[in-house]
C-alpha cells in the first residue's frame, strides 16, 4: 500500500496525496500556532498526556477483543462495544451494593477484583452467546454478511439492556482509595489515572501470557494461522473460537469496570457504541489481528484524542475544540483506513486477510 505508485498512478492517488499533504500541513500549522502562543504549560501537557494514556489503556482493552476475533475469524465484531457496555452496565448495581455495605471502601482491592470478575463474566457470557447464536451459523459466508449481522446484534444488545436496566444514566460510586493525586516534581497526576493504566496493563500482560505461554493460546494461534490444518491437528475449532470470544468479552467487561471507576459521568445502554468504534480504530491503528499492536494503538489513540484538540484544532482557531474530540478519533479511523490499513505494526498475514 505504501509503495511508490509509478505504474498505476491515477487521479484518485493524486487526490489522496493532496489530502495527505493538507492534513500534515493542518497539523503542523495548528501545532505551531499552539506551541508558539504558549497557552498551555508543560505541566498541563503532561496532564493531558497522562489522561490520554489512561483513556487509551481502556481503548486498548476493548481493542484486544476486536483484534483477537479478527485474528481468528477475519470478521469485525461490530457488537463488541456492546459487550463492553453489558459488563459495565451490569456491574454498576454490584458496585452500588458493595458501596452500600461499605466493603468497597474497606477492601477496595478485593471489591474491585470482584467487580472486574463479575463484569468480565457477564460480558464473557454475552460475547459467547453472541458468537453461538449470531455468528456461528454464518461462518464462511461473504464478509459483509457477518458485518451486517454484527450491526444488528449491536443494536439488539443496546436496546435489550435498555429494556432490562432502564434508559437512565447510572454512576459508579466513588472509591476513596482512588481519589487524590500523586505529586511528581510539580506535576500532579490523579491516582485513578495511575490505577486505570496499571490495571489495564496487568490485564494485558495476563492476555499476553495466555496467548503466548499456554496450550489454549497455542491453539488460538494455530486456528488463526490456518483453521483447516488446526482442525487436522486435533484442535476443536468451535471451542477455540468460543474461547476467543470469551477472552475478548472478559477483557471488555473488565474495561467496563475500569472505565466506570475512571469516568464519573456514569453508564447507560448507549455507552458502548462510541468507545466500540474508537477501540476498533485502535485495533486498526496497531494492525488488526496483532495483539501488541492493539495495545499500542489504544494508547496512541487515547493520547492523540487528549492532545489533538488542544494542540491542532485550537491552534487552527476552531472554537470549542474539546467538543471535537470524537471527530479527531473518527478522523484518525478514516485516515488509518485510507493511508495505512495494515496499521502501525503491520497486520499479521496481511496477504490472505487483505
Amino acid at each position, binding site marked *: 500500500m505504501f509503495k511508490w505508485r509509478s505504474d498505476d498512478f491515477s487521479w484518485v492517488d493524486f487526490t489522496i496525496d493532496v489530502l495527505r499533504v493538507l492534513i500534515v500541513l493542518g497539523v503542523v500549522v495548528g501545532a505551531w500556532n499552539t506551541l508558539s502562543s504558549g497557552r498551555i504549560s508543560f505541566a498541563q501537557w503532561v496532564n493531558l498526556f497522562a489522561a490520554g494514556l489512561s483513556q487509551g489503556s481502556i481503548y486498548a482493552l476493548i481493542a484486544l477483543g476486536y483484534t483477537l476475533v479478527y485474528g481468528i475469524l477475519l470478521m469485525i465484531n461490530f457488537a463488541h462495544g456492546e459487550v463492553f457496555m453489558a459488563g459495565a452496565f451490569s456491574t454498576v448495581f454490584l458496585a452500588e451494593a458493595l458501596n452500600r455495605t461499605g466493603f468497597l471502601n474497606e477492601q477496595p482491592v478485593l471489591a474491585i477484583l470482584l467487580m472486574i470478575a463479575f463484569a468480565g463474566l457477564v460480558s464473557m457470557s454475552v460475547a459467547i452467546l453472541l458468537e453461538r447464536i449470531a455468528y456461528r451459523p454464518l461462518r464462511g*459466508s461473504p464478509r459483509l454478511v457477518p458485518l451486517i449481522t454484527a450491526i444488528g446484534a449491536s443494536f439488539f444488545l443496546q436496546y435489550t439492556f435498555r*429494556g432490562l436496566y432502564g434508559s437512565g444514566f447510572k454512576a459508579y460510586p466513588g472509591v476513596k482509595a482512588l481519589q487524590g493525586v500523586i505529586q511528581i516534581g510539580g506535576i500532579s497526576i490523579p491516582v485513578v489515572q495511575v490505577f486505570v493504566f496499571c490495571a489495564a496493563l496487568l490485564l494485558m500482560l495476563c492476555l499476553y501470557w495466555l496467548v503466548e505461554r499456554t496450550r489454549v493460546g497455542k491453539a488460538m494461534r494455530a486456528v488463526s494461522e490456518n483453521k483447516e490444518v488446526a482442525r487436522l491437528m486435533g484442535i476443536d475449532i468451535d471451542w477455540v473460537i468460543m474461547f476467543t470470544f470469551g477472552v475478548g468479552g472478559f477483557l471488555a467487561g473488565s474495561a467496563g469496570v475500569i472505565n466506570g471507576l475512571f469516568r464519573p459521568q456514569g453508564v447507560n445502554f448507549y455507552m458502548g457504541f462510541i468507545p466500540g*468504534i474508537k477501540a476498533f480504530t485502535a485495533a486498526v491503528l496497531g494492525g488488526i489481528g496483532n495483539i501488541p499492536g492493539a495495545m499500542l494503538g489504544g494508547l496512541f489513540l487515547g493520547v492523540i484524542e487528549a492532545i489533538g484538540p488542544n494542540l491542532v484544532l485550537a491552534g487552527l482557531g476552531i472554537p470549542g475544540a474539546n467538543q471535537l474530540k470524537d471527530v479527531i478519533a473518527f478522523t484518525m479511523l478514516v485516515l488509518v483506513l485510507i493511508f495505512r490499513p495494515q496499521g502501525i505494526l503491520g497486520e499479521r498475514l496481511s496477504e490472505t486477510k487483505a
Partner: protein
Amino acid sequence: MNMLRSRNLRIVVTLGLLSGAFILYTGAVGMIAAFHEREVVKDVISLGQVLLALAPFAAGFMAANRIGDEGAGQAAILAGGFAVGLITATPTIVLLLFNSAEYRFLLELTLRVLPFLVATYFAWPMYRNGKDMQFVIGSWLAIAVLIGIVTFSFALIFEIKGDLRSVLVNINRDWVDVVTFDNRRELMTGILTLAIVSAAAGLAGSVFRIIPTIPRRALLYGFGVTLLVGAFGETVRLILQENLDRDTMRELFQRDTLRQQPALMLLIISTVAGFLWAKFGQQVRTGLTSMESSQRRVVNGVGMLVFAGILLMLPWLIGRTLSDVAVTIGIFVLMGLGLNIAIGLAGLLDLGYVTNYAVGAYILAVLTSIGPLGRLDGVFTFWMVIPVALLAAMFAGFVFAVPVLRMRGDYLAIATLGFGEIIGKLAISDWLKPLIGGAQGVQAIPKPIFLGAELKNPEQLYYIVLAASLVTLFVSIRLNNSRTGRQWMAIREDEDVAKAMGIDTARAKLLAFTLSAATGGVAGAIFAAKVGTVFPNSFTVFISINVLSLIIVGGIASNPGIVVGAVVLIGMPELLREFSDFRFLMYGALLVMMMINRPQGFIPSKLVSHEVRAAVKAKVATAD
C-alpha cells in the same frame, strides 16, 4: 419406540424452553407490559396477551409439526403441544415466584445452589468419559467458582437492593399484572391462570397442525386479519373515519379499540373469505395464468391503474395523521432506493448515509429559512433549493467517496460509519454554530409554495415525496439495466475481476456513491421542509441503520422489497406507538435473523435470490 419418545421429549423441551425464554425476555425488556396498553378487542384481549399466547401457540405448532414428522400419533402430538405450552410458562412462573415477597427464599436458594448444579452438569460427562479424577475435580471447582462469583454478586445485589425491580426495571407491577391476568394479589391463582392459558395455547397450536389444510388456512386468515385490524385499530379507525359517518364509527370502535361485536363479525367474514380463497384461490390463479396474453395484459393494466389510483388518492383516503406517516415512509423509501444504489447494485456497504440526508436538510434549512440563521431573507424557495440540495449532497457523496475508493468490504463500511459520526459531531459543535446553529439547529423553514398555494399539510407534501420516489424508482430501474448497472454488478461480485475486465472501478464506484447520495439529499430537504426545523439530533447513525434495515428486510437490490420494507419498518413504529420504544431492538433482531435465515430479503430481487441459491449449492458441494 423408546428412542422415538426421548427424541420427541427433546423436541418438546427445547421448543418449550425457547418460547419460554422468549416470553421471559419480552417481559424483562418491558415489551409485554407496553403491548398490554394496546387492546386488540375491547375488554377481550390486549396485544400483550396476544404476545403471551402467540409464543406457546407457535411453539406448539412447530413441536406438533416435528413430532408429526417423526411419525407420532394424534394423541402424542396433542400431548406434545400441551407440554410445550406448559414448559413455555415455567420460566415466567419461576421469575414471578422470585419476584414475590413470600417465595423470595427460592431465589436465594437457587443462587446458592446453582454454581454446584452447573459445575456438576459439566463435570459429570467428564467423569463418565473416564477423565482423570484430578482433572474432573479441578474443572468442577473452577466452574463452580466462576458461576459462584456471578451468583454471589447477584445475591448481594438483590439483598442490598431489596427487590428485583430495582435492577430489572421492567419486572414491575405492570408486568406481574399482565402475566398473571390481573391476579397480582393471589399469586397462585395468577400462576395457575398463566399455566392454563399457555398450555391451552400450546394445545391449540398442535390442534392447528392436525386439522386439514383448507380450514387451517381459513382460520389463519380469519384470526390474522382480525388481529391486524385490532392491533392497528387506531389506523383503521382513522381511515374509516374519512369515509364513514360518526354513528357507524361509534358502533365499530370505542376510541381506538375494536368493539366485540364488530370483531366477531370481522373474524367470521375473514374466515369465510379465507375459506373461499383457500378452496378456490388456486383455480383463480391458474385461470389468470392460462389466460391469453392480450387478456392478461388487460387484467394487469387494470390492476396497475387501480394501484396508481390508490397511490394518487391516498391522502384523501387516509386523512391527515396517516398522510403524515405516509410522508415519513416516503422519505425513507427515497433514502432506501438511494442507498440501494450503493449497497444493492454496487455492493458498497455505506453506513454513513445519514451524511447525505443531513447535507440536504441543512442546505435547504440555511438557504430558505426566514429565521435568524437564514440570511438570505427567503429569496430562495423550496423549488429552487431542491436541485441545490441534490447537487450539494452529490458533492458531499463525491468528497466522501474519493478517500474510500480503495477500501473494500468491511473497512469501507466502518470508514463511512466514521464519516457519519464526524458529520454528526460537527453539526452539533460550536465551530459551525454561526452557520448551522449548533444544538439549536435551524428554525423557521417555510413550507414549499406551489402555484401560489402553500403546501403546509402532509396531504400536500405527500405528492412531493411521491413524485421524488417515482423519479428515483425510474432512475434506479433504468440504472439497473444499463451499462453502468452491469459494471456495478460486476464490481459487487468481484472487484479484481471487474477491473481486469477493463471496468474503470474507481469511476463506477464514485458514480454509485454520488447517485446514491443525491436521493439522500432530496430526502433530507423534504424532511427539513416537512418538519420546519432542523436539529443535529435528527441526524444520527440510527437513520443509517434504519435505512439499512429496510433494505435488508425488504430485499437487497429489490425495489418493491425496499418499498414494502419502508412501509413495514417505518410505518409500524409510527402507527403503533407501543412498538416505537422497541424499534431498534426489533431492527437489530431482524437484521440478525434475516442474515441467518433469509439473506435475500422478504421480497428478493430475482438475481439476488438466484445468487443465494447458487451460493447454497456451492456450499453444499464443497461440504461433500
